[in-house]
């Protein structure tokens, strides 16, 4: 049954050896020695007394600690700088389905790409962090604030936009590297977009000049008959890079 089972006695741990006679009360005595050691050392050794008197002393929270999610907004105005575009990917992928989003539409029904209502029911949320993972717009991150006890179980635990949105520098305060990484990636994306926009603008300007140049030649040659070959080149836009 057992392959190469070496039956050497378990040297790793020290169970009582074969027939070595042991004083009947020896195990009980060793137990007493252990508890006595713990009792005496708990007065002067740090790792033998591990209680932290919570409200007065506070144990340090590790930077990676995640609690309930919060929304991030750039700049200082919470309403304008809100990054969330109500795409509700997080609402679909949240396992206990505790996020509730209503898209904000202006009067003629066009979506204003921001949430009118964004609610998280903290009594249902199990702070698993999946919403922060799947959010494509870096708008939802996990907070590490845990003193949130309330008395009303239903109303108070339903966090609306007013209590969820926090500024980027709050995000930088609680998670420095993550905030820095996100800021860096957003800046890089912004620059890339600008560069693309500038490139597109130049291309447009260049095309506009060519068109102007061609028009002048036509007026100069307008009387000269060159329009036979001037099939109007449609301003073909090679794949503009969005």
């Amino acid at each position, binding site marked *: 049954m*057992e*392959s*190469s*089972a*070496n*039956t*050497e*006695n*378990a040297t790793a741990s020290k*169970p*009582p*050896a*074969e*027939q*070595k006679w042991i004083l*009947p009360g020896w195990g*009980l005595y060793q*137990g*007493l020695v*252990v*508890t*006595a050691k*713990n*009792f005496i050392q*708990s*007065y002067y050794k740090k790792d*033998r*007394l*591990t*209680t932290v*008197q919570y409200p007065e002393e506070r144990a340090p929270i590790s930077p990676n600690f995640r609690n309930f999610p919060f929304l991030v907004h750039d700049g200082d105005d919470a309403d304008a700088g809100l990054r969330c575009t109500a795409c509700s990917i997080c609402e679909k992928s949240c396992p206990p389905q505790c996020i509730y989003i209503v898209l904000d539409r202006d009067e003629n029904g066009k979506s204003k790409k921001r949430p009118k209502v964004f609610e998280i029911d903290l009594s249902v949320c199990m702070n698993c962090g999946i919403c922060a993972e799947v959010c494509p717009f870096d708008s939802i991150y996990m907070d590490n604030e845990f003193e949130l006890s309330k008395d009303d179980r239903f109303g108070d635990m339903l966090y609306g936009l007013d209590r969820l949105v926090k500024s980027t520098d709050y995000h930088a305060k609680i998670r420095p590297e993550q905030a820095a990484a996100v800021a860096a990636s957003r800046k890089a994306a912004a620059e890339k977009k600008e560069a693309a926009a500038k490139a597109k603008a130049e291309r447009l300007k260049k095309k506009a000049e060519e068109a102007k140049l061609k028009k002048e030649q036509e007026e100069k040659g307008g009387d000269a008959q060159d329009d036979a070959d001037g099939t109007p080149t449609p301003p073909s836009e090679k794949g503009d890079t969005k």
Partner: protein
Amino acid sequence: MNFLANQVDLSNAVDAPAIWTTLEALPQLPNRLVEWVGFQMNAPAWLATLLGMLVSAAVVVGVFLTCFALVSLVERKTLARIQNRYGPNRVGPWGLFQPVADGIKMLTKEDIVPDKAEKLLHLIAPIMIVIPAVLALGVLPYGKEWVPVNLELGLLFFFAVGAMTELSVFIAGWASGSKFPMLGSLRAISQMVSYELPLLISAIGVIMMTGSMSLPSIVEHQSQYNFGFISNWNIFTPWGLVGGIVFFIACIAEANRCPFDLPEGESEIVAGHMTEYSGFKYALFFMGEYLGLFAISGLFITLFLGGWSAPFAGLEFVPSWLWFFGKLVCVIMTMLWIRGTWMRVRMDQLMRFCWLFLIPLSLLTIPAAGIWRFCGDGFLAGLLGWGVTIPFLIIPYIIITVILNRRLAPATRQYHFAE
């Protein structure tokens, strides 16, 4: 009425000048006050003795109720320190008001009586558990001048009163009417009845050596100092050592302390005979248990650890009652230490341990004490005494543990390792 009459006459104690003797006679202060007031108002004789009795009773009950409060706190704090945590420290400095808080909680909790219970017996049981403990406390000699009741047959009184606890545990368990208390009281009675035997037999040795049953004389006998400074406690004699260990184990069993706390084994039958009690009756059970613990460990100290006598001749100046309470603290701390470490014994192991191990061993201490007595006293005789009694006790011990209980001995196990 004579057994109440022979109060210790304390006339000579008052005129000793030094501070130590006044401190020594501190426990007698209330009696002195009452006598002085009685003398001033020249009250009749019978009123004076009645008042004297009441005052000494009040002193004993007062001291031991504060002890009960303190020990319930000390128990939680020492167990906490053994387990690397603080223990109650929120109510008052170092948690000193915690017993007060517990008391108030117990008083305000609603007192539920199950409808299947016998109402009257359900009420009587907790009271009947506290009475023997307080009676037993009245008999112990706490200091040179402090003996609440000096009975000629103090030890017999102690055991007679102790017998009432089994009856009250039965009433508590049976009157509650439901299943777990029934099981709990069954266990409690069989444990107490069988551990009463080693308790009594190992006390016989002490009675034989001192020649009388009165507790103050037992302590008197132990408080001489032979070869200059070693005190003559019974624990230092071979039969006293073995008898003392057996007595201590039986004390733990009588007081239902770990490792014999089967009656209220939490992990099995919730709280044994105390399951159907709440509110102040539950607190009474606790008071009865703790006072019983003080009484039985007080008796252990009186019989084997030399009551209020100082361990060495030089330390005579310390007031005698301080020695008694110091030893009481040591005994209770050992019990707490054991409670923090060991597991609970199963019911049949408890019975086998008592009947097949403790009782034969305690029966042996009686002839051993006899042999010790006839080896005479003096240094050489002491050595001879030790030389003879020790093998007389050890050989049967080996016979009992190794040969008789061979099949019960725990096997040492082999463990193999596979790739």
